[in-house]
């Protein structure tokens, strides 16, 4: 939707304009046309790999190839399917009808040159381990960017499990770094449905039953998603899988799609190595147990995917109230009192009749201690000064303000105006940010501390994503 996000379309048009604009330059330089094409391809690839545009990949040049092999036994089943097997990838793939499937006696190979892949309802797919699953609702498999190496495995998560397991080999000529992930389209809700246990066969399934099941299944995009991991596990040994390598189907609605994708990709990555090994080998033997465990894990993740993603955000209980605060405060008070008493004892070396020294020293003490009046000798004054110094270290703030005698100076005091300094942010760090807007201004207006911005033709980059605007109006307060 260009109107929703004009950036991909704009970027593509800019690329085209630039390439066309330099075509003559390249020709004048005697450079081959192929170099220009390489430049274009490189450029588009880099833009694709960046997070700037999410929708840029829709028309990307690179399209991974993979092959879907369907067993012969499946052909007859699909022939009776109500929906035709149409799996277009972009605009280049031909459509495959069931009639085409029926013509070949051996397994059919379908090559998909790229994304997206639309798997309509009624298609039966088999996983590596040989389990067969039927697609009940249309599924769109699209390519995501920047997720190299993530496996796409849990097809059984999405599909109805049917039939006997059979050996089905699927070759993947090229697993591209860009993985396949089913994403919900913005324009259509894509949901997957698992059949309820009542519909699932309890034992070996005939082709007939499969056909019947096919005809009974209604394609209904509005169906809600239901996962029955227990049922699937029960029928694991006696079921078939259809291998569609490189496909992960998001089993939830679009609202929780990113969360589910992340969950699925995380769980799917566990099976990556396993899947790669089993690509060209029969899916039996020791791998089965691993697959079983992983399936259980994946199913559980898928089942609780949307919830589990949100669960870790449970708010923790508030930390215990520091009950000891009061105790600490009381202890401090006691310590002060103790200090006062001690200094009071120390100060009274000259006995009663002391006045000025008490005012200086005992400023932080109780008023009662200043009752004494008298003349202080010089020697006593010196002693008192020493006492005052030691006490001023404890009560420096209060003593300094009451210091009337210039001879009694507090040795250690806070630097003047030390609290006036305002720590300033480093200018380079202040202007260093990843969120940048480059634009042109029509008008910048200021009234006192109120600013108004009239901007135009801007490109914004927030967290790697790009946005553009023709006009921007802003209000700010400084």
């Amino acid at each position, binding site marked *: 939707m260009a*109107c*929703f996000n*004009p950036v991909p379309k*704009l*970027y593509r*048009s*800019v690329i085209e*304009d*630039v390439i066309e*604009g*330099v075509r003559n*330059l390249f020709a004048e*330089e005697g*450079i081959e046309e192929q*170099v220009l094409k*390489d*430049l274009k391809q*490189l*450029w588009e690839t*880099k*833009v694709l790999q*960046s997070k700037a545009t999410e929708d840029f990949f829709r028309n990307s040049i690179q399209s991974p190839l993979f092959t879907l092999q369907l067993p012969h036994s499946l052909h007859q089943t699909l022939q009776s399917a109500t929906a035709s097997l149409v799996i277009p990838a972009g605009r280049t793939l031909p459509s495959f009808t069931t009639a085409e499937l029926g013509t070949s006696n051996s397994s059919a190979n379908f090559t998909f040159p790229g994304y997206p892949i639309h798997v309509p309802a009624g298609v039966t797919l088999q996983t590596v381990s040989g389990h067969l699953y039927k697609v009940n609702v249309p599924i769109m498999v699209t390519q995501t960017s920047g997720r190299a190496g993530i496996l796409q495995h849990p097809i059984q998560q999405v599909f109805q499990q049917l039939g006997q397991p059979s050996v089905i080999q699927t070759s993947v000529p090229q697993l591209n770094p860009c993985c396949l992930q089913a994403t919900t389209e913005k324009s259509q809700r894509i949901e997957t449905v698992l059949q309820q246990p009542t519909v699932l066969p309890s034992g070996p399934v005939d082709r007939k039953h499969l056909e019947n099941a096919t005809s009974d299944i209604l394609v209904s995009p509005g169906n809600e998603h239901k996962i029955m991991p227990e049922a699937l596990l029960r029928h694991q040994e006696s079921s078939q899988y259809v291998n569609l390598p490189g496909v992960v189907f998001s089993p939830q609605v679009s609202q929780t799609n990113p969360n589910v994708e992340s969950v699925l990709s995380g769980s799917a990555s566990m099976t990556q190595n396993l899947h790669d090994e089993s690509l060209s080998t029969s899916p039996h033997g020791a791998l089965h147990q691993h697959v079983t465990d992983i399936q259980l894990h994946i199913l559980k993740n898928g089942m609780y995917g949307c919830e589990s993603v949100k669960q870790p955000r449970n708010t923790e209980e508030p930390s215990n109230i520091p009950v000891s605060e009061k105790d600490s405060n009381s202890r401090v008070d006691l310590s002060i009192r103790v200090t006062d008493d001690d200094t009071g004892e120390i100060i009274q070396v000259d006995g009663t009749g002391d006045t000025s020294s008490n005012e200086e020293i005992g400023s932080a003490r109780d008023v009662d201690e200043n009752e004494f009046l008298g003349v202080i000798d010089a020697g006593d004054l010196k002693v008192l000064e020493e006492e005052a110094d030691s006490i001023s270290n404890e009560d420096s703030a209060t003593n300094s303000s009451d210091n009337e005698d210039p001879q009694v100076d507090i040795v250690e005091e806070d630097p003047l105006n030390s609290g006036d300094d305002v720590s300033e942010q480093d200018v380079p760090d*202040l*202007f260093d*940010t990843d*969120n*940048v*807007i*480059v*634009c*042109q*201004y*029509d*008008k*910048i*207006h200021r009234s*006192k501390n109120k*600013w108004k*911005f009239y*901007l*135009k*033709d*801007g*490109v*914004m980059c*927030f967290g*790697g994503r*790009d*946005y*553009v*605007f*023709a*006009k*921007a*109006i*802003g*209000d*700010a*307060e*400084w």
Partner: protein
Amino acid sequence: MAYQLYRNTTLRNSLQESLDELIQSQQITPQLALQVLLQFDKAINSALAQRVRNRVNFRVFLNTYRFCDNVWTFVLNDVEFREVTELTKVDKVKIVACDGKNTGSNTTE
């Protein structure tokens, strides 16, 4: 002459990297790469002026402002960009704005 303002964008940087690769493989000359970049400047200015039609509003707290050589640089905090279809919130944003008028002048009180 088109502004070289948009050189610090994803599109421009990816073009630069692509050209660097071709230069290293000696498929093109640095002079030609420079010509390509100049062509990009023209194309992006033209595209933004003609092909983009959306409007954005925002309310911010202005942290710093700078005006030098007819270029405004702002650092904004707690930005909230509001478009018709979506709302984007960012903690910190730097705006670099060149004069968009031929005889441009900013008004202050």
